């Protein structure tokens, strides 16, 4: 089989982790698979780079110097623990050192200019993967696997110049990735590619933004028409609920792309919808697996929607740190454009809306936003809408959370909502707001924050998700 394996930041966090990953790769090779490996930055490094570039922008050269030492030490320690062969160790050490020197030059440049453009930020952020990738490559060489490291650019991933959240030019990318990586695979070499980073057609480094390294893996997987894309992380897979809330929650063995996207949108720890797109289009299965528990087969995401009898709801998630805003006024009834104004104001102020509900009476609109945006949102709405004779009152409830239920089996099954709300009512939980998309893949509703966990437990139990 032709596989793409992507290893997340926690999977390559230190030398022991690197060895564990090398073992997984070697086991797979021994089973006769041909592999491309995609690597994230070591856990926490990208955030540190972000902070270092902000400090550099302020002209803080001391911070830069300390940061450089810290990052050099961390990666050299990883090398020390991961690689035995002395001559390989020497080689990779000098690679790491020269990359760190480059970081220092770039950060110093930023500090002197006092300027951090999205383009230069992408350049800085690329270093996390540019350091972790060669180290993993050498860890493979160390155990006798033939491998070669490449940057996303070397691998042929081309994007537009929307720095910070670049979009791949898919046609060109697919062609180039095939050209670059297939010859390596044919020679029995394992390409180890940096996740998250790519380049413009002129060769400037870009980053893929949300979805990051997972996106790189699915882009490469779809370019090579891989048999499966494996996302190795630190959990067993997508779960029916947060095990901290429902101890009996279990890993779902199988789920469709649509369901996975719904779950991702509801904040479940999984893949970003953007990252799922290339795999979904080509119908390549994506499997989420645990580096620290490789025996577990994980969760398989694919195009086949096999709805088993009686399987209606797949998973239930809880979204916390949200606030409900209610806009009311008799003047809103039959006034076209009111909703447009509300969401236009929110959009202009960069406030993302998670959930919306309006009753047919039109006398109020409720929606849910992230708690961190509440102050900004309330103020902007009050300034824009109050005193115009249409909206009379804008109120907020900070004490809420969203319960989101996902499952393809809900489509066309009568009585699902009744079961959901009955189960919740039995626990004495009051439902504040309800929303169901017409795709019928999900139902979400808001309850008081203190009731959130009880509601999740009730639904998990009602639909027998532990079994």
């Amino acid at each position, binding site marked *: 089989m032709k596989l793409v394996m992507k290893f997340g930041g926690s999977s390559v966090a230190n030398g022991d982790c690197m060895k564990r990953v090398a073992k997984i790769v070697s086991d797979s090779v021994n089973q006769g698979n041909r592999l491309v490996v995609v690597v994230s930055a070591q856990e926490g490094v990208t955030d540190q780079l972000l902070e270092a570039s902000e400090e550099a922008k302020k002209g803080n050269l001391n911070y830069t110097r300390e940061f450089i030492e810290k990052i050099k030490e961390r990666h050299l320690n990883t090398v020390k623990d991961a690689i035995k062969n002395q001559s390989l160790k020497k080689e990779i050490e000098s690679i790491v050192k020269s990359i760190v020197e480059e970081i220092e030059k770039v950060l110093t440049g930023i500090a002197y200019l006092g300027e951090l453009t999205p383009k230069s930020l992408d350049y800085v952020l690329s270093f996390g993967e540019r350091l972790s990738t060669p180290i993993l490559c050498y860890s493979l060489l160390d155990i006798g696997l033939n491998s070669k490291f490449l940057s996303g650019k070397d691998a042929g991933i081309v994007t537009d110049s929307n720095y910070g959240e670049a979009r791949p030019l898919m046609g060109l990318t697919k062609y180039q990735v095939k050209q670059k990586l297939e010859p390596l695979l044919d020679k029995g070499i394992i390409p180890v590619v940096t996740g998250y980073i790519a380049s413009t057609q002129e060769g400037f480094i870009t980053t893929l933004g949300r979805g990051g390294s997972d996106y790189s893996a699915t882009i490469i997987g779809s370019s090579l028409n891989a048999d499966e894309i494996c996302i190795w992380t630190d959990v067993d897979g997508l779960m029916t609920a947060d095990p901290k809330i429902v101890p009996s929650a279990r890993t779902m063995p199988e789920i469709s792309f649509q369901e996975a996207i719904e779950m991702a949108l509801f904040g479940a720890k999984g893949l970003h919808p953007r990252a799922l797109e290339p795999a979904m289009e080509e119908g390549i299965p994506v499997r989420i697996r645990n580096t620290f528990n490789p025996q577990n087969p994980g969760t398989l995401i694919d195009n086949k929607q096999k709805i088993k009898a009686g399987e209606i709801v797949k998973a239930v998630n809880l979204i916390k740190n949200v606030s409900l805003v209610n806009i009311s006024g008799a003047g809103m009834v039959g006034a076209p454009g009111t909703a447009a*104004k509300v969401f236009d*104001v929110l959009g*202009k102020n960069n406030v993302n809306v998670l959930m919306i509900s309006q009753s047919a009476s039109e006398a109020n609109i409720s929606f849910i936003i992230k708690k961190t945006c509440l*102050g*900004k949102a309330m*103020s*902007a709405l*009050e*300034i*824009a*809408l*109050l*005193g*115009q004779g249409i909206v009379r009152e*804008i109120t907020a409830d900070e004490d809420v959370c969203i319960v989101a239920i996902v499952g393809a089996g809900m489509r066309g099954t009568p009585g699902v909502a009744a079961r959901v709300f009955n189960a919740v009512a039995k626990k004495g939980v009051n439902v504040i707001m309800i929303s169901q998309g017409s795709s019928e893949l999900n139902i979400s509703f808001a309850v008081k924050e203190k009731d959130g966990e009880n509601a999740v437990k009730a639904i998990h139990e009602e639909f027998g998700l532990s079994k």
Partner: protein
Amino acid sequence: MRIILLGFGVVGQSFLQLLTLRYNELASIYGLRPRIVAIVDRKGAAVDERGLDMKKMLKVKKEMGSVSKADDKGFLNLSAEEVIKKTEAEIVIEVTPTDIKSGEPGLTHIETSIKNGKHIITTNKGPLALALPALMDLAEYNGVYLRFSGTVGGGMPILDLGRKCLIADRIISIRGILNGTTNYILTEMSEKNIEFDEALRKAQELGYAEKDPSLDIDGFDTASKLVIMANWIMGKKVTLKDVKINGIRNITLKDLMDADKNGKTIKLIGSIDKELEVKPKEISKKDVLCVHGTFNAVTFVSEFAGEETIIGKGAGGMETASAILRDLIDIKTNLSARMMA
């Protein structure tokens, strides 16, 4: 609307009292929902991004001397600059005391607010007298509103009368009695037949004059108001340096008695014509400008409408607070229009 209040003396406290008195009316008539997210006084600050309890803050200030002593919201030594930079808010209200020499700390507060994209309302004349053309330019460039109705005439809408009500007409000159303290002193001298020093002492006892009365009696306060009117109403790019200033320190009882013989009296007149001037002048007792006690009066001479005079109380906490509220509603209306466009 989220507001940062810098300075919590008489004006700042009056403003909060006014908000609590008018809270429901402000929402229903003007669509204004003010939220005071931070108050800074000499000793520190109180911050709450959801909005401080205004009544509680007034109580803390009264009982403990500083809002920084408020139990969970207070921060000792937290500076105004830090608050402006780090607290999310739409508006900064700057009501710290006037320093006519350096303009500080108000000048830094105003500059920082503008550069951080926060609209600003001030009653502090110092920064405006020294740098109004620069501040107006900076505000326009950064797309924020700079308003200061309370700096001239307390609660009287002098600036708006000149700029908004006489729109389309051309104002040729302005003259007026713009300082209540000096007017009180001159009135006392003339009515009670006392010398300057005694009248000043009385004014100080009544709280009309400061311990260091120089700002008022040497004419700087009047001159500052001229600068503000010249910039705002007449579009003249002037500062305090462009004003010829003479105070009332050297006016004697004899001067007043001599004027009286001719049916006149002496008033500290500020005028904007070809030039800006503050000077004690003899005026007819029948002149419409000739108001007494702490009253102020301003006459606009316009090309078509002729002369209009506005008379009223030129100072006071609640009066000035009402001017701040006017500015606040004005900014809210502008922002609302901007957002809905």
